[in-house]
């Protein structure tokens, strides 16, 4: 049976409940659904931000996420997979990214979701710019994100 895979890049917000329902409706072979929602933080004190703007590389973003979706399907026995990444201006408290993984087994659902998030953070061509009190600035890549992604590399 073909595993349903949904990948969407969009400016609009998404509805997590609707995405879970879309993966599991009418099926009785799914034992576990894991969702990861990445949300825009407001920062605090002098680092308070009023919004993020996400730039992306159209075409490559879809290709890169598609390649990692395929790899997740090859590595874990998933019964469904949804990845949604927003771009454009996003305010604190709003959604940025959603990964939903469904499987018969909870370990597979958890590991595939972590794998996909680690790769979205470090390999998907998106760049965050913050708007704060002192103007706008590009967010630096975090080295701990590279370390998190590296753990999935086959040795």
């Amino acid at each position, binding site marked *: 049976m073909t595993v349903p895979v949904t990948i969407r890049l969009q400016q609009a917000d998404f509805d997590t409940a609707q995405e879970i329902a879309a993966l599991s409706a009418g099926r009785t072979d799914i034992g576990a659904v894991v969702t990861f929602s*990445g949300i825009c933080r407001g920062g605090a004190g002098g680092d308070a931000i009023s919004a993020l703007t*996400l*730039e*992306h*590389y159209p*075409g*490559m973003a879809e*290709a*890169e996420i598609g390649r990692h979706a395929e790899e997740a399907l090859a590595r874990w026995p998933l019964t469904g997979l949804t990845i949604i*990444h927003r771009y454009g201006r996003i305010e604190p408290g709003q959604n*940025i*990214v959603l990964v939903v993984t469904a499987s018969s087994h909870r370990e597979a659902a958890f590991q595939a979701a972590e794998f996909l*998030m680690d790769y*979205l*953070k*470090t*390999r*998907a*061509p*998106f*760049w*965050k*710019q913050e708007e704060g009190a002192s103007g706008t600035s*590009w*967010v*630096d*890549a*975090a080295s701990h*994100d590279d370390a998190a992604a590296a753990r999935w590399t086959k040795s």
Partner: protein
Amino acid sequence: MKVVYFAWVRERIGMAEEIVDPPPAVRTVADLIGWLSGRGEQYAYAFENARVIRAAIDHAHVKPDTAIAGAREIAFFPPMTGG
């Protein structure tokens, strides 16, 4: 050959994309960065720390020593911060 720029690489160079025609001696991604850097102050600024610049050829990540022959679109950008 089309070259596209993103995030602060785009901002420093001052444009999102352009068509370039490097000489045959420019064989790799690293060669292209060096050649572009010689085109003006804004390029030199964008590529001043070449170690942090990431590149993609035709929508796939590549390393500095990757050959550019046959590339349709080459992209330069800072480390990704999505997710």
